[in-house]
């Protein structure tokens, strides 16, 4: 099941710089996308989402961009902070009677001081 792919297993960024995490999807019918953040020994925490009617959604330091023609979304974090070090998952709700989330493999982001 490769409906959602995150091709970078890890990313290392200097504190204060921009972090860009990428996600690709296969089904052009997907119309809503989420990013979750996960610290060790904790569950995924919802971070930000975007609907397919938009191409950008911003919440403080976090911005998600959606390129529907490329079936690609990205999460930008600026400026990056040490507390942003975590695993980031993109996810898509697949509605077949009830919402189930299909997750990407995750990208481990490390912010270096």
């Amino acid at each position, binding site marked *: 099941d490769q409906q959602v792919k995150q091709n970078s297993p890890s990313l290392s960024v200097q504190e204060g710089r921009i972090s860009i995490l990428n996600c690709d999807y296969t089904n052009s019918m997907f119309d809503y996308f*989420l990013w*979750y953040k996960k610290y060790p*020994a*904790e*569950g*995924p*925490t*919802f971070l930000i*989402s975007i609907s397919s009617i938009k191409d950008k959604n911003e919440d403080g330091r976090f911005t998600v961009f959606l390129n529907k023609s490329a079936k690609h979304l990205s999460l930008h974090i600026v400026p990056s902070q040490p507390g942003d070090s975590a695993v980031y*998952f993109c996810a898509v709700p697949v509605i*077949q*009677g*009830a*919402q*189930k*989330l*299909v*997750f*990407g*493999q*995750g990208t481990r982001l490390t912010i270096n001081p």
Partner: protein
Amino acid sequence: EPEVTQTPSHQVTQMGQEVILRCVPISNHLYFYWYRQILGQKVEFLVSFYNNEISEKSEIFDDQFSVERPDGSNFTLKIRSTKLEDSAMYFCASSRWDQPQHFGDGTRLSIL
């Protein structure tokens, strides 16, 4: 902020034994889910539950698995006869229909 709580945080069980993982969803949520993450792999959907019945289940969720909402607050996942490959982190989640799912911190299940 209300949270999804899961117990126990770590469960060690002998292969072939039954195990019950417990979850208390957020109180005004109506949709409940179980996911699992095998070490080094993706978070995978297992089952969704609404109005006291399963609304969808994955191919992983075979006859060895069951879910129950025994009272107004708890939501449980039972594995009848555990196998080595059931070792994973199990996450419970809950949501309102139109809101993102909220996850608990998970139960690490280790099958010996």
